[in-house]
């Protein structure tokens, strides 16, 4: 069990045909959303492990099994996870799912009150805008009532509207994963510092493999900015792969300017993470020569600041590893002091 304890584990649950395997494949394996039509029904619990700044485990349970009958097995299971993600098919009749959800929460909360409960209201791509909100309100209301009946009004449940055909599923998973990163406040603080001193408009710390963002600065996330940054990671990886020299290992760095003066900046960090930043150096009314020099100086400052940020990231990572080895569990705050 100690091996499971050391990493943040996400448990994916839901009724059958809710879309759990599709979510896994799309987010973590870069599968095309349409190809998930051909996935077979999952029969066994599957668990996978991804290693980035955080060690992330994803465990998927088949929908048709009855897991809340109190048996030793499931008790251990719930004890070891950090987040329980329940997938509800919004295009289907969801009353059954809600009863099922309430029973799972009741059981899991008893075993491990530190679990964070996340509900994905899934497959919303075919619903109209009004209907989406209605569905969400209805589901939130009913879940609240069910929990009240069970005497569990203190449990926090978060809701997300998701679909695998746009970026909402990545957004939701980013939020879920962020709750499991104990170092998150430090990372956000570091990113905020970086943003303030380098004319950055928005920056994300991406996991290159899944395009989930582990952290971002504290300004509000605009979904379009996120999409552009995520796609930029793809562009950089694809182009690098075409002309890669197999015998030299390169740290990825990519800078792109757009016509309106916006700069997209990507730098590879440690452990499969990449920093992607959106920079708007100056207003575009300047003359082009003036603009060139100010952009050049802005990028130089950024390079320098990001080097410092990277060093900070390495330190956070080292300390986190030491702290975990001392027997701390993931969700407690680590004793970092120097920033």
């Amino acid at each position, binding site marked *: 069990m100690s091996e499971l304890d050391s990493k943040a584990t996400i448990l994916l649950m839901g009724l059958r045909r809710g879309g759990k395997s599709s979510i896994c494949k799309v987010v973590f394996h870069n599968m095309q959303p*349409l190809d998930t039509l051909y996935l077979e029904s999952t029969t066994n619990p599957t668990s996978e492990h991804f290693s980035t700044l955080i060690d992330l485990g994803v465990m998927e349970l088949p929908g048709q099994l009855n897991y809340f009958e109190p048996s030793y097995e499931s008790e251990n299971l719930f004890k070891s996870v950090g987040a329980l993600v329940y997938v509800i098919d919004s295009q289907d009749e969801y009353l059954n799912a809600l009863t099922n959800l309430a029973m799972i929460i009741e059981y899991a909360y008893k075993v491990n009150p530190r679990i964070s409960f996340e509900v994905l209201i899934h497959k919303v791509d075919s619903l109209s805008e009004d209907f989406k909100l209605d569905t969400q309100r209805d589901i939130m209301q009913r879940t609240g009532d069910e929990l009240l009946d069970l005497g569990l009004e203190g449990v926090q449940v978060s809701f997300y509207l998701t679909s695998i055909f746009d970026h909402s599923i990545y957004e939701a998973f980013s939020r879920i994963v962020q709750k499991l990163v104990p170092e998150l406040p430090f990372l956000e603080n570091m990113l905020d510092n970086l943003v303030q001193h380098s004319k950055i408009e928005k920056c994300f710390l991406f996991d290159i493999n899944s395009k989930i963002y582990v952290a971002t600065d504290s300004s509000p996330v605009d979904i*379009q*900015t996120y*999409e*552009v940054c995520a*796609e*930029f990671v*793809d*562009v*950089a990886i*694809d*182009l*690098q792969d*075409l*002309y890669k020299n197999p015998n030299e290992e*390169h740290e*990825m*760095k*990519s*800078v*792109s*300017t*757009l*016509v*309106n003066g*916006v700069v997209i900046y990507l730098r590879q960090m440690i452990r499969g993470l990449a920093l992607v930043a*959106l920079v708007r150096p100056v207003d575009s009314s300047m003359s082009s020569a003036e603009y060139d020099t100010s952009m050049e100086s802005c990028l130089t400052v950024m390079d320098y600041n990001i080097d410092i940020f990277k060093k900070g990231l390495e330190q956070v990572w080292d300390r986190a590893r030491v702290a975990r080895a001392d027997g701390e569990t993931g969700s407690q705050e680590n004793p970092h002091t120097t920033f």
Partner: protein
Amino acid sequence: MSSNNRKKLLLMGRSGAGKSSMRSIIFSNYSAFDTRRLGATIDVEHSHLRFLGNMTLNLWDCGGQDVFMENYFTQQKDHIFQMVQVLIHVFDVESQEVIRDIEIFTRALKHLKRYSPDAKIFVLLHKMDLVQLDKRHELFEIMMSKLQETSAVYGFPDLVGFPTSIWDESLYKAWSKIVCSLIPNMNVYQSNLKKLKQVMDAREIILFEKATFLVVCSSNTSMGEALDPKRFEKISNVMKNFKQSSMKLKSSFKTLVLNDTIYVSEISPNMMCFIVLTKSDDPKDLVLENIKKAKQYFQ
């Protein structure tokens, strides 16, 4: 001169072969998924596309249902087949009536021979993704030798064919070959590009058309290196996706520098260049200055 710059392209083939899907992907920024929404083309759909600034492509997308087809070969024949520069005939590899497909092709050739004997003929064996990997090459060879035979009879001996699919890069390859055959001063571009490559000591330089990201020409002297043979089409694909996503920031893409070895930049109002350097320690200013200086040779 202006009449010389207007190129008439006929896009023909039987109904359901995928003609309109191709056009939408290459010239209208559709993704492969989006093409499912396209309905049947009624009669002929004209589109006028500016390409490399002074060239206009008049693409005649001819609906392929038998009623329309019959019409093209009888009543509208002089209208359709006059002044054609290029015929692009699309064959569905999954088609059940191959004999009938070829028959339509021969009828088109017959009319072309009469009305515009100088036309270039391209055939595309489309929907190749539906054939098993190991059978593709064989199928393509059989079909091409058959078509070659047919077209030689009508006085078009050098037929060019491509296996294509909208789900991979083969579509970009075919279309950039087709469009490049229409560019008059190709030799100038080619020799300028070679010089530029020497000056910059680059591994490779590729020129792309700006709007469609089709390959115009490349320095293709890869010095015995094993590079991905499909890289041009892959780059087209990647850069086009990036162009789409930069649209979300209400702007369009200007330059990209990756690892200080790959430079993508505008080189003329309608071309982009893609430069891969041999080493990464060239100062950035120097490279950018070189690109700026090269611009005058690619106007």
